[in-house]
């Protein structure tokens, strides 16, 4: 029984005719890293937003455990069940990195006693020092913002972590560090990690690789 199960998921954007997703089947389990690769515009981000509970699929079902997320309280699901690293970060640009993390923890009703200390430590772990953490998001580089986004996604210790091109703005040394974090999340902490990527390097930590084209998704052979 997977953490997430997709059954014949179809999706088209409101006001368009073309189906971006055209019958996607997949199953994601805890303790594994999944990567999804595919051409630009093949529907990867669209799929992630459905998994993230930001939108509802047009057809088919997405099961979280054995609950259709259509019927879940999706605010709750987003707040506690899943952590999302957005392709375009989606941070509060007028707030500092630390405020972003603490706010997210608050929304998720994190039980952490000293949320601020926890957030600083977490940011440290993804390579953001205290001085940078206190700066407004607007004044951070793309790579720094990406790392804050990753920290936010895992700050409330969700069961599922999904990331859209999480290393797109990072140099290879940092990319390596981040990939280690994702790998540890799955393999040590038993999370289900799903990463959309173009990067070959990311696929090296993957347990399962899916390929997307024309709105369909298929498991690919892992080439080591």
């Amino acid at each position: 029984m997977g953490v997430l199960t997709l059954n014949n998921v179809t999706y088209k954007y409101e006001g368009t005719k073309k189906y971006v997703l055209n019958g996607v089947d997949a199953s994601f389990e805890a303790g594994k890293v999944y990567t999804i690769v595919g051409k630009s515009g093949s529907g990867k981000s669209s799929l992630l937003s459905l998994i993230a509970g930001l939108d509802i699929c047009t057809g088919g079902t997405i099961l979280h455990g054995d609950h259709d997320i259509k019927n879940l309280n999706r605010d709750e699901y987003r707040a506690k069940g899943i952590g999302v690293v957005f392709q375009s970060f989606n941070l509060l640009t007028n707030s500092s990195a630390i405020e972003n993390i603490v706010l997210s923890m608050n929304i998720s009703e994190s039980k952490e006693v000293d949320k601020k200390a926890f957030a600083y430590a977490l940011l440290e772990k993804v390579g953001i020092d205290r001085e940078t953490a206190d700066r407004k998001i607007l004044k951070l580089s793309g790579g720094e913002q990406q790392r804050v986004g990753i920290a936010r996604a895992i700050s409330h210790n969700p069961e599922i972590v999904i990331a859209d091109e999480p290393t797109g703005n990072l140099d290879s040394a940092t990319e390596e560090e981040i990939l280690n974090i994702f790998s540890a999340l799955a393999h040590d902490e038993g999370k289900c990690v799903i990463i959309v990527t173009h990067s070959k390097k990311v696929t090296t930590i993957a347990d399962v690789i899916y390929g997307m084209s024309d709105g369909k998704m298929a498991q690919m052979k892992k080439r080591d």
Partner: protein
Amino acid sequence: MYIFQNALKNLVRNLGRNIMIGAIIFAIILTTVITLIINNTASAVIDDYKGRFGSEVYIRPNMEKVRDEAMKNSKDGRVMMRMPQISSELYLQFTNSEYLRESILTGSRGANNSDIHAIDQDDNSEANGNSGLSASSGGMMQAMRLDGGNFQLLGDSWQDFNDGLRSFESGTFPQNDNECVISTELRDANNIKIGDHLTFTAKVDIDTPIDLDTSGLSEGDTVEVNGTEYNVSISAMETVRLDRDVTYELEVVGVYDDLTDEYANENMTKAAFLNKRNEVLTTLPTLLAARKSDETGIRINATYYLKEPDMISDFEAQARAMGLPDTFDVETDAASYDNVVKPVLGLKNISITFMIAVMVMGAIILLLLCSISIRERKYEIGVLRAMGMKKFKVALGLWTEILTITCICLVIGLGLGVTAAQPVSDAILKSQVSAAQASAPQVPGGMMVAGKGGPMTSMGPGGFMSGGASQAQPLSEMKITLGLNTILELILISILLASFAGLVSISKITKYEPIRILMERN
């Protein structure tokens, strides 16, 4: 909890925008503060006025109607105006009206006493004359003596004692009918002692019945009307008058010291009947007992107080039904009302108009500002929603922000408004007062009666000589106060304002799913 913290932080994070919103809210609150303060104070002034003046009823002849009537009845081109009279019986009947809170009735009549000598009594002139006319200099005619006599018998007229102008030298107020109180001067002049009985004579009249043939009557005849015998007297104008003598036998029970002036003004002709020392104070029932209900001759001075000022028309209808002639007007002190209330009312209206204008304009600007700022904030809201923040919490945060801005504005606005309200109100009131004075006609102090071809006479009908004089001074100053009610009203208005502004934002949030908001930006 974190929602409120975050909301407060947001205020600082978007300082520029919030200052702009704050400025608008501030302007609205400031004008509202000033308006409400002025308004409430004005209402208090008007209520106070109505409580003090608005309930006093005046019943007085409408001279225009009297003149019209006289012209109509004129046969030979000469206009003979007679001051209309209300019978004492009618005055008494009015007191039964359920619309009245209180009635104060006093009575007076002239009388003679052949045993004692009045102060300033001039035995050479005809003391019993019917038509003694006294004119004072200054153009102002004084009272015409209709009923003759050197003494004035006053019924229930104790106001001078209340005012401290008269006090008892010895004795007390009458406890029973047919008792009286006299002045020390009158006592000393005639060596009167408490317990003495004084016999006053006076005349009461009856209207000449329409069916009475007066052509054959001459001075000194007697006729019988309703079983009572009356003496006939014929005036210079050849009108027939029917009267009879009545006597009052009064026991002196008290003597008063009098601080009032002997004469109402210095220029008055000295005559016994005008001298206040000759006033003999007794009870109204004593005065009235001597006359039958269809007879006149006792002047009644009645002051009626309505339970509520707006009962005036009900009271008037009732009075008319009881037989009050059309030639009398029933009114409250309209002149005072105009003097006091009109400027305040004007002030109130101006401030309300102003407030509405500012509120409407402010609301429109606020609406625009909020919908612009919400567009700016759409992304922020999208992010919060994507992180799983519930709609109502997002709304609560936004509401907290706008409410905090409002509260800050409220505090500053209250302070500034309280300071500004007084000078603002003074300035507006000033212009209102002068406008009211310009439009208000001069109130006559007495009534002038001009008979065409006849002498000019002025008389106070039934004691209403100066009833119409306006005593209320126009308000030149209104003390502005800030009551608890005003503060509560303000807080309520502010919260509504904040909620209104918040509602705009909140309605937008609920319209968008987070994915849409985020997609729009990406």
